[in-house]
C-alpha cells in the first residue's frame, strides 16, 4: 500500500494536491469534470470584506509558456460567501481552505474573525500580495514588517491554521518566510504570481487594462521551485509549493525541493482535470519507483549533509 496522505499544519490531507486560489473558482465549476474529493484540499478564490468588482478587461494575456492575469481580486465579499457559497461547498468531502485578503491590517483581522466564525473551514490562507492602501499601495508581502503585522493580526483572530501566501516579487523570499513564521504562520504557500507586462505592438499599449499583471504557468516554475528550495532551508513549517505545475512530475519537483503539499493553478485553466491528473501522476511515480510514502520525497533533493 502506498501512502499519499500528508499532514499540513494539523490538517490531514488524503494527498498533497491542492488547488491554487483564484484558479479554481469556488470549486463547483470543476465538479463537472472530476470528483473533487480526489483532491487533498480545496483552496478557493481570495475573499475580501466588501465585494470587489476587480479590474476592467482585458484581464488576461498569454505569454510564452505562461499567462498574465489582472483579475484584481474580484469577489462577492465575505458576507455573500458565508451566506450563499459556503453552505454549498460543504457538500464536497474535502478539506476547505479559504483565502483572505484586505487593504489594511484591520481588514485582514476582520476577515479572519468572520471566516473562523463561519465554521466548516479547515484553514485560512492569507494572501499578503494585496496592496496596502495606507503604505501607498505597496504590497504587504514585499515588506517583512508589514507581512509580519498582517500575519500577527490574523493569528490573533483565529484558531484555524494560518497559511501565509508569499509573493516572489522580493529580494529575499526566505527572509519573508522567516518573519511570517515568527509572526505565527503555521505554513507558507509559495509562490503567488510574478509581476509582468505584455505590450501590444499594434496598439502600442499594454495588453492588460491594468497595465501590469501576474505571471503564472510553466514559465515561472523554475522561479517557484527555487523559492521553495530556499524557504525549506529557512523555516521548519510545511510549505505548499505552486507555480506552473501542469502534471505529476512538476509537482514532484516541488516536493523534492521541500514542499509538503502542492497547488495546481494555471493548469486548471488549460485543462479542467489538471489537479486530478497531478494526483494520478504522483501516484504513478510512487508506484513505479517503489516508494511507499510520499512524505519520503519532501525535501529529498537537499540530500543528506546539506
Amino acid at each position, binding site marked *: 500500500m502506498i501512502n499519499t496522505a500528508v499532514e499540513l499544519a494539523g490538517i490531514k490531507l488524503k494527498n498533497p494536491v491542492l488547488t491554487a486560489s*483564484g*484558479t*479554481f*473558482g469556488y470549486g463547483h*465549476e*470543476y465538479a*463537472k*469534470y472530476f470528483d473533487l474529493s480526489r483532491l487533498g484540499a480545496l483552496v478557493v*478564490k481570495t475573499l475580501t470584506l466588501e465585494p470587489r*468588482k*476587480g479590474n*476592467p*478587461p*482585458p*484581464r*488576461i*494575456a*498569454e505569454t*510564452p*509558456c*505562461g*499567462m498574465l*492575469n489582472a*483579475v484584481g481580486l*474580484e469577489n462577492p465579499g465575505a458576507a455573500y460567501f458565508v451566506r450563499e457559497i459556503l453552505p454549498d461547498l460543504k457538500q464536497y468531502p474535502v478539506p476547505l481552505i479559504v483565502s483572505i485578503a484586505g487593504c489594511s491590517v484591520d481588514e485582514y483581522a476582520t476577515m479572519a474573525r468572520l471566516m473562523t466564525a463561519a465554521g466548516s473551514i479547515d484553514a485560512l490562507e492569507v494572501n499578503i500580495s494585496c496592496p496596502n492602501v495606507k503604505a501607498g499601495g505597496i504590497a504587504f508581502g514585499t515588506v517583512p514588517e508589514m507581512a509580519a503585522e498582517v500575519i500577527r493580526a490574523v493569528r490573533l483572530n483565529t484558531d484555524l491554521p494560518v497559511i501565509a501566501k508569499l509573493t516572489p516579487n522580493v529580494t529575499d523570499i526566505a527572509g519573508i518566510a522567516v518573519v511570517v513564521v515568527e509572526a505565527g504562520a503555521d505554513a507558507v504557500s509559495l509562490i503567488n504570481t510574478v509581476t509582468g507586462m505584455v505590450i501590444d505592438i499594434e496598439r502600442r499599449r499594454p495588453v492588460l487594462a491594468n497595465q501590469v499583471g501576474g505571471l503564472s*504557468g*510553466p514559465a515561472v516554475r523554475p522561479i517557484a521551485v527555487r523559492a521553495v528550495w530556499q524557504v525549506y532551508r529557512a523555516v521548519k513549517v510545511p510549505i505548499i509549493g505552486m507555480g506552473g505545475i*501542469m502534471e505529476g512530475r512538476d509537482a514532484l519537483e516541488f516536493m523534492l525541493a521541500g514542499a509538503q503539499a502542492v497547488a495546481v493553478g*494555471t493548469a*486548471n*485553466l*488549460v*485543462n*479542467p*482535470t489538471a489537479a486530478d491528473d497531478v494526483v494520478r501522476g504522483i501516484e504513478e511515480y510512487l508506484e513505479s519507483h517503489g516508494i511507499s510514502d510520499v512524505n519520503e520525497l519532501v525535501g529529498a533533493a537537499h540530500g543528506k549533509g546539506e
Partner: protein
Amino acid sequence: MSFIVDAEITHNRKVAEGCYNLTFRAPEITGSAQPGQFVHLRCGPTLDPLLRRPLGIQGVKREQELVQVLYQIVGKGTRLLTAFEPGGRVNVLGPLGRGFTLPAGARRAALIAGGLGIAPLCFLYEELAEQGIAVEVFHGVRSAGQVSAHDLIPDGRVLMASDDGSLGYHGSVVKMFEDHIGLETFDFFFATGPSPMLRALGKLAEQHNLPGQVSLEERMGCGIGACLCCNCRTKDKDEDGWRYSRVCADGPVFPVEEVVWP
C-alpha cells in the same frame, strides 16, 4: 454539461484567404451543442501556446457526430491550427457558454454578422429554419473574396455588405441593417462580430427599441467560468448601475439591452 475530448479531425481546409474550416468528430459535443455556444481548443501538444482558443460552433452533424468551426489566422494559436491534419487529434473542451435563445412568439428574425461572426449564425440559421422562423441574414465583410454568408447559407435570404463596396452594400453591415428597419419588421435580431460593430448595433437597437441578442468576445482563460478573466459589463441594480459578467459562462450571448458598451 461539457466535455474534454481528444477529437479526431476529419477536415481542415482553407476556405478563403487566411480562413479555415475545421471539422472533428465529437459525439459528446454534438449531443448537446446549441447555436451560440463555443468550443475551447488546444492548438498543439506543447506548452506554447499555453491557453486554449475559443471558437464558435459553426454547425454540428448529429448523425455523423461532427462539429464544424470556422477560424481565421490571427496569431500563434490559429496559425498552428492550420497544420492539423485529418486523422490527427485536436483537444477540445465544449460545448461551452450560453447560446442564443428564441423569445416566445418571435416569427421573423434578423441575423447580423460581421466577418467570421457568421460562423455561429450558420448554426443558428439551421435551428431557426427548422422551427419555421423567417430569417434574413445581414453579413458584412471587408471585401469580396472573404468567407461570405452567400456561400455558407446558400439557400437563405442573404444580404451582403462590404467595407470597400466590392460586394453588395458599400458600408457597414449595421448601416445596411438600419436601412432595412424601416422597410421590414423583425421581432428579434441575433448578432455576432467585432466589438465596435456590436456596439453600433447596440445603440441602434436602443433607438429603435429592437429586442435582440449579441455574442461578445473577450480574451479567455478557463472558458468555464472559474478564472474571471473574460469579464464584460452588464447592467445591474447596484449603485454603479453595472457589474462584471463572464463572457464564457454568463455569455457569450447576452440580451442586447443588458450589455454596457465600453
